[in-house]
C-alpha cells in the first residue's frame, strides 16, 4: 500500500531531488517501525509505549545520546573500512576478521609496553592495530592483485580464522589470573581517553577525521581521481598508466588497517581489555552500512547513527519489557529489508 502511494507521489508531486530522497528514506524507516510494532503487538507488548521508551531513553537524555555515540564508534570505522576499497570495486567482507586482528596487535602493545606514558603508548597501539588489520587484509589483496582468487571469498574465509587466533592468544598466553577468556585490565596509559563523564572515547573523533580525510582524498587529490578511474574501468585505467596492482594492494590493506583501528578502539576505548569473541558483528554491520549508502562518507555517519540508535533502544527494551535483547535485530533487519527492496536505491533495473 505504502509503496503504491510512493510511486504516485513520485509522479504527481514535483519535489527537489534531495527532499524527495529524504522523504523516501523516512517513509521506509517508518514502514519498518510499523512492521516491528506489529511484531511487538503480537508478542503482547505495547508498541507505542515501547517506541516512546526507546526514543526518550536514547534521544531524550544526554546520557542516552552519549551511549548511541559509543555504539556508533566501531561501525563508523568498519563502514569506512569497506567504503574505501569499494571505490576501486574491491569488496571487503573481511572487516570482522581485520577488526579482531587489529585488536590483538593493539593488545600486545598494551601488555608489552605497560610502563610507557600514555602519549607514547596510545600512538603505538594505534599503529599496531592498523598494522594488524592491514596484515589480515594483505593475503586477499595480494591474491586479487595477481588475479588468482577473488578478494570476496578470501576475506570472508579469514573472518572465521581471526577469532580463533584471538582465542589461542588469550587462553594460551594473555589471560588474567581470574578469567581465562579475558586479558587483565589494561593500564590507564593504554586506555583511549574518554570525554567528561561519558563512555565516548576519542575513537569517534578519529573516525570522523578519517571520514573527512577520505572525502577530501576522493574529492581533491590525484589519488582520488585515479581511484575513480579504476572504479570506472580498471582495464582502461591500467592502459593509461595507473599502477592497478599497487592500488589494489594499498587500498585494500588501508581498508584493513581502518578495520584494525576499529578493533584497537574497542579494546582500548570501550572494554579496556581483550576478550574472546568480543565483536557482535561490527565488521558485517560496517559492510551493510557502507553498501546501503554507496560508500558516501556523510551517509556512513547518518546510517551508523541510525543503526546505533536502534541497538541502544534494544538494550532498554530488554530492561523494561523483558524481551530478549537480540530481537532488536528484527527491527534493524526490517529497516535493511525495506531499503534493500528499493530498486531505485540498489541501482538495479526492473524487469
Amino acid at each position: 500500500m505504502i509503496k503504491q502511494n510512493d510511486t504516485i507521489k513520485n509522479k504527481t508531486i514535483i519535489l527537489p531531488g534531495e527532499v524527495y530522497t529524504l522523504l523516501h528514506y523516512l517513509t521506509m524507516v517508518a514502514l519498518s517501525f510499523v512492521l516491528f510494532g506489529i511484531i511487538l503487538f503480537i508478542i503482547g507488548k505495547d508498541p507505542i509505549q515501547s517506541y516512546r521508551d526507546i526514543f526518550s531513553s536514547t534521544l531524550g537524555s544526554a546520557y542516552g545520546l552519549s551511549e548511541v555515540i559509543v555504539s556508533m564508534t566501531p561501525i563508523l570505522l568498519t563502514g569506512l573500512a569497506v567504503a574505501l576499497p569499494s571505490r576501486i570495486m574491491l569488496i571487503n567482507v573481511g572487516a570482522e576478521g581485520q577488526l579482531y586482528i587489529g585488536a590483538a596487535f593493539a593488545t600486545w602493545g598494551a601488555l608489552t609496553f605497560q610502563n610507557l606514558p600514555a602519549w607514547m603508548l596510545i600512538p603505538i597501539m594505534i599503529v599496531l592495530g592498523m598494522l594488524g588489520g592491514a596484515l589480515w587484509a594483505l593475503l586477499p589483496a595480494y591474491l586479487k592483485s595477481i588475479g588468482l582468487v577473488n578478494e570476496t571469498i578470501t576475506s570472508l574465509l579469514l573472518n572465521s580464522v581471526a577469532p580463533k587466533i584471538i582465542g589461542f592468544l588469550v587462553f594460551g598466553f594473555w589471560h588474567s589470573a581470574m578469567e581465562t577468556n579475558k586479558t587483565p585490565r589494561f593500564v590507564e596509559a593504554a586506555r583511549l581517553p574518554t570525554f567528561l563523564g561519558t563512555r565516548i572515547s576519542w575513537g569517534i573523533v578519529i573516525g570522523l577525521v578519517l571520514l573527512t580525510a577520505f572525502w577530501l582524498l576522493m574529492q581533491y587529490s590525484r589519488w582520488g581521481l585515479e581511484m575513480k578511474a579504476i572504479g570506472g574501468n580498471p582495464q582502461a585505467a591500467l592502459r593509461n598508466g595507473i599502477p592497478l596492482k599497487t592500488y589494489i594492494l594499498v587500498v585494500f590493506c588501508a581498508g584493513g588497517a581502518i578495520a584494525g583501528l576499529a578493533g584497537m578502539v574497542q579494546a582500548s576505548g570501550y572494554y579496556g581489555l581483550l576478550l574472546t569473541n568480543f565483536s557482535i558483528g561490527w565488521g558485517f554491520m560496517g559492510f551493510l552500512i557502507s553498501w546501503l549508502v554507496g560508500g558516501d562518507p556523510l551517509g556512513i555517519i547518518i546510517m551508523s547513527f541510525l543503526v546505533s540508535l536502534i541497538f541502544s533502544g534494544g538494550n532498554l527494551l530488554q530492561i523494561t519489557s523483558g524481551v530478549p535483547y537480540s530481537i532488536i535485530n528484527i527491527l534493524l533487519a526490517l529497516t535493511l529489508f525495506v531499503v534493500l527492496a528499493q530498486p531505485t536505491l540498489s541501482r538495479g533495473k526492473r524487469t
Partner: protein
Amino acid sequence: MNLLSLLGILSSAIYSGTSLLYTALGEVIHERAGMVNLGLEGVLLVSAASGFAITVQSGNPYLGVLVSVIAGALLNMVFGYLTVIRKANQLASGLAIMFFGFGLSALIGNPYVGKSIHALPRFELPGLAHLPTLTASLFRFDLLIFLVIPTAVIVWFLLFRTRWGLGLRAVGENANIAYASGRNPLLIQFQALLVGGMLAGLGAAHIAIAYAMNWTEYMTGGRGFIAVALVIFSRWHPIRAIVGALLFSASVAVQLVLQNSGINISPFLLDCFPYIITLLVLIAWGGTKKQQAPASLGRVFQGTK
C-alpha cells in the same frame, strides 16, 4: 588410546558433521545457480528455533523436522524476494537475513529455553548386532544421519545428470545466455533457493532436535559461515562436500585424539586448520579452468529490458 575411544571420536564427528553437510549441500545448490547466501546463519537459527518449538509443543520430533524445513525454505524466499525480484545486492541481503535470523530466532525460541524434548529416535546400524553393546551404542544414529550421504548423491544427480540441473548451472555461469536459450533464470534461482533452504532446514533440525536437544540463542555457532567455507573447499561439488564436512568436523575429533596421546596443541589452532586447507585449495586451483566458481556467482540477473 584404544579402539573404543577412536570409534567414539568418529561417532561424534559424524554427529557434528551431519548438520554441516546438509547446510553446505543447500549452499552448493544456491551457488551453482549464481547466488551467494551469507544469511545461512540466520536461516539455520530460525529453522532450529521453530523446529525445536514445535517439537516441544507437539512432542513429535518428525513434525519438528518438517517445520524446520518449511521455516528454512520460507526465510530463503525472503532472500529470493530481495535478490531475485528486487535485484538487491546478494552479500548485503544475506547479511540482513543473518541479523533478521538472530532476532527472529531469539523471539521464537525465548519461551523454550531450558525445555527438554523427545529427540529424534536413534536406530542401530544394521549388521552390528554381534558387536558389544557399548561399541554398538556409538553407532546408533538418527534418520537424518542415515539420509545425509544419499542426499548428497541425490543433489549431485540433480545438478549434473538432469535437465533441471543443467539449466540451474547455466544460470549460475551466465544468466543472460541461459535466458536467451529459453530458460527462466528468475524461476530457476527461486527453485534453487527453495531446495537450498529446505536442506539448511534439515541441517538446523539436526542441530536442535537430534544433536544439542535444546535451544539457546546463537546455538548454531557460525555453522552457516563454516558451510560457505566448506562449499568453497569442495569447489562447488556435492560429493566433495562430504569430504569437506568430515574435515571440518574432524578437527574436533583430532583434538581429542591428540589430547589423549598427550600432545598439547591449542584447540583454537586446530580449528583454523580446515580454513587454511580451504585457502590452499583456492590458491592451488585458482586461475586454472578446472572447476572454478560459477562464473556469475554473486551477480544479480538484471533481466532483459
